[in-house]
């Protein structure tokens, strides 16, 4: 069996190597990069390394077009966030922006070449209703869902269903927790909110602290059942880590916070795979410290087998015979982490055998 060749993270680790690329390599890089949603970020990396002139003329437009899209996206996102704040001005508590939208608003390196699909907001559970009705007044509406999914969201999910804008193609996800309430790792969202700080230029919108951003991204990544943007999300983590690592005492603070939040295991995995794919610099002491959070050797081997496949771009050229079982395993594992078997089994049965045959609902 031919070993799959994954070029996207290869270029992130060794940008200079593109000088030796054949046309077939460029062909593969563009296709994998597009599937991983990382073309614009690759472009930013190559520009920064002054290597963009080494992109052959026939391939260049793919990178430039991706950058154009990312820039427009981000401009629109900033405008949307200003409007959002204006429509929520009546609320007397700050809203925590999460993930892509937060990176863009705060202009973090992790926003480089980033396409942002949604606005993710962390809201205290008891204030969800308030925020939702304020959003409704500003022309946001709930996405219609089948009755089963509606009940599922209400009971088990850590976010409310999506809200979309009536005229603009924008989506807001309201979260009241980081992971489901019944999950095995259950970080206290109020602790995260308490350390969030206001984003300059976006009064009323806040950003998680450096450590919390990383722990949040790590936890999400290893609770994501589809990992449709796995490598992109891991690349976000890489950029967050590289930025934070320049601050004094960052690593001890990160470790202390991980311990406090009981998120050492997700952090362990995040650092392991960030190093694997992006050669993220992690000090030896940090790795030594996290050894206590390591799973058993057999489990780790299995996890490596699964996540090195699942985090690679979802392109044919990156897949091998073990990719489909890895995908199934990820789905099961993440659901396992989210809820006890008594709830899990009926849910999976419903999703596998009943919902595919039900008709789509009308939007609410």
């Amino acid at each position, binding site marked *: 069996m031919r070993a799959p060749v994954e070029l996207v993270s290869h270029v992130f680790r060794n940008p200079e190597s593109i000088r030796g690329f*054949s046309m*077939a390599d*460029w062909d593969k890089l563009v296709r994998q990069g*597009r599937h991983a949603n990382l073309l614009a970020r690759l472009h930013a990396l190559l520009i920064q390394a002054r290597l963009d002139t080494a992109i052959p003329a026939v391939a260049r437009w*793919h990178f430039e*077009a991706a950058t*154009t899209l990312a820039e427009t996206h981000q401009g629109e996102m900033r405008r949307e966030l200003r409007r959002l704040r204006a429509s929520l001005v009546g609320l007397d508590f700050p809203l925590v922006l999460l993930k892509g939208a937060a990176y863009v608003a705060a202009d973090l390196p992790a926003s480089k070449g980033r396409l942002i699909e949604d606005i993710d907001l962390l809201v205290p559970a008891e204030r969800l209703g308030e925020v939702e009705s304020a959003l409704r007044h500003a022309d946001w509406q709930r996405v219609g869902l089948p009755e089963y999914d509606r009940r599922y969201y209400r009971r088990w999910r850590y976010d409310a269903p999506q809200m979309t804008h009536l005229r603009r193609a924008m989506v807001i996800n309201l979260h009241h927790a980081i992971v489901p309430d019944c999950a095995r790792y259950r970080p206290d969202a109020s602790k995260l909110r308490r350390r969030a700080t206001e984003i300059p230029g976006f009064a009323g919108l806040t950003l998680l602290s450096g450590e919390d951003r990383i722990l949040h991204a790590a936890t999400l990544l290893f609770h994501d059942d589809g990992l449709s943007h796995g490598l992109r999300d891991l690349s976000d983590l890489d950029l967050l880590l590289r930025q934070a690592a320049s601050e004094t005492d960052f690593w001890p603070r990160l470790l202390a916070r991980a311990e406090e939040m009981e998120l050492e295991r997700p952090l362990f995995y995040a650092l392991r795979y960030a190093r694997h794919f992006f050669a993220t610099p992690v000090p030896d002491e940090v790795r030594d410290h996290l050894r206590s959070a390591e799973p058993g050797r057999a489990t780790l081997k299995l996890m490596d087998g699964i996540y090195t496949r699942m985090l690679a771009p979802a392109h044919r050229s990156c897949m091998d015979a073990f990719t489909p079982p890895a995908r199934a395993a990820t789905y099961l594992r993440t659901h396992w982490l989210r809820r006890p078997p008594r709830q899990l089994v009926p849910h999976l049965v419903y999703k596998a055998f009943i919902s595919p045959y039900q008709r789509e609902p009308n939007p609410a």
Partner: protein
Amino acid sequence: MKLLQLPPGELRRQLADQGIWLGTGPFSLRVRSRIDSVAEGLGELYGQFEVRNPHETFADFHVSVDPQTTLREGLRPKANFSFDGIKPFEPLPLDQAYPLLERGLDWCVSEHAHQYLMIRAAVVEKNDQAVILPALPDSGKSTLVAALVLSGWRLLSDELTLIDRKSGWIHPLPRPIRLKNESIPLIRAFHGDAFFSGVSRSSADDSIAYMRPPKESVRRQHEPAKPRWIIFPKWVSDGELEVLPRSKQETYQSLTQHAFNYSQLGTEGFRVCSALIKQTDSYDFQYSRLEEAVAIFDRLAVSSVPTKLGN
């Protein structure tokens, strides 16, 4: 080498196997298909286009149209278009495989090629001046375009006007012209030499045939053209020929509606669109007879004072 130099059997074999590399305008494709009608369609319509051995090459779009059998559809296979594993459309009956490929190629370009402002419009050129013809449903745009390119105009595109964001010039993508129903016999009668692919039926029960792009247009497919006019054609069954100037503001509005990626380009879209409006004159154009319409366009091409048009 040109596609017509591949013997039909060889074309079919390569398409089914590793695929062929095909150059169309500024884009390169790698096309794979195990469906005979796709090989036939490509053989009939793309003879003048360049093909290469796909090994060690770069292709912008890796596409395939293949039979797919789903349980829900029973055992009758359908044709499914895939862009490198992404399947943007519902599968269609197998006899629509070729139209599905053409639609898929339009999709690939309009979803990705943001180095251009892309307008859903035909575009033809004569004397170094291009006419953009935005498509309204049932406007008879493709029929008019077919008549024009059979009368000496150069085909730049039947469906996608690609405006280079830097230069403001239009890049050709002279792929086959899609004609519907009565337009097919009409164009056959208009010009005996027009070559058509086999007729297929669409899901809406229209007859669809593709007209092969003129050889000269394909030969010049890398020569951009300067936009000069924007004309909104409308065919009426029995009416006066009419040419009415259209205000810049109205034209701007229509263009943004016809553009595929106006919003994706942000302020850049506004800039390119404004520059385009500034250097063009636009008209609403109503016609009944193709010969008369072509005569008007020919006068347009030689006139340097477009306001006298129609007098």
